[in-house]
């Protein structure tokens, strides 16, 4: 490893507090991590994609996952999709506080778009994790 590589690695390891802040803001509110850094177009596209994905998922009757203590056998199975859903940040927390999308509704489950809705909700969270990391990298100076 050359000297410049070592210097680059050291610079890369010490991300400023601002970068962490941008990452957290980007996670909490999709698109805002880029918006606060003046990346309007990127904020609109990334945030828009996540918001549309999430809202479309809810509209199609998708189900948001949460680990419940009463179902011990399936609690671990609920954890990975919950982590994916949690990527939507405040959208997930708002739905959780309002009780939207969490009920095991048989009418919703019978809809032909139910599984699509689940997938859209999961992917919205996962895409927002990518957007969050992008906002972090831009603020840390690792990306333009």
């Amino acid at each position: 490893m050359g000297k410049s590589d070592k210097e680059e690695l050291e610079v890369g390891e010490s991300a400023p507090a601002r970068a962490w802040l941008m990452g957290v803001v980007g996670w909490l509110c999709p698109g805002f991590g880029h918006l606060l850094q003046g990346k309007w177009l990127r904020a609109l596209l990334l945030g828009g994609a996540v918001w549309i994905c999430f809202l479309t998922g809810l509209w199609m009757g998708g189900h948001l996952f949460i680990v419940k203590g009463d179902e011990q056998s399936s609690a671990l199975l609920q954890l990975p999709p919950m982590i994916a859903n949690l990527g939507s940040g405040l959208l997930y927390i708002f739905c959780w506080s309002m009780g939207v999308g969490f009920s095991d509704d048989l009418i919703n489950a019978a809809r032909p778009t139910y599984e699509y809705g689940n997938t859209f909700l999961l992917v919205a969270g996962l895409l927002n994790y990518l957007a969050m990391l992008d906002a972090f990298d831009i603020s840390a100076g690792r990306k333009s």
Partner: protein
Amino acid sequence: MRHFLVMTAFAGLAAVVFGIVAKDSKKERIVYGLKVFAEFLVIGLALGWILYFIPF
């Protein structure tokens, strides 16, 4: 038809994010985004037809 539209919407949204996050220049982003979009559609259709012929 509705399934295809939903798959197209899904591919479009994912391609936008992948394109922006993965590449650095504007041209690379557009090309990569279109490539991801096409891959989602083609692979989705191919898998759909493969599964159609599997009887179980």
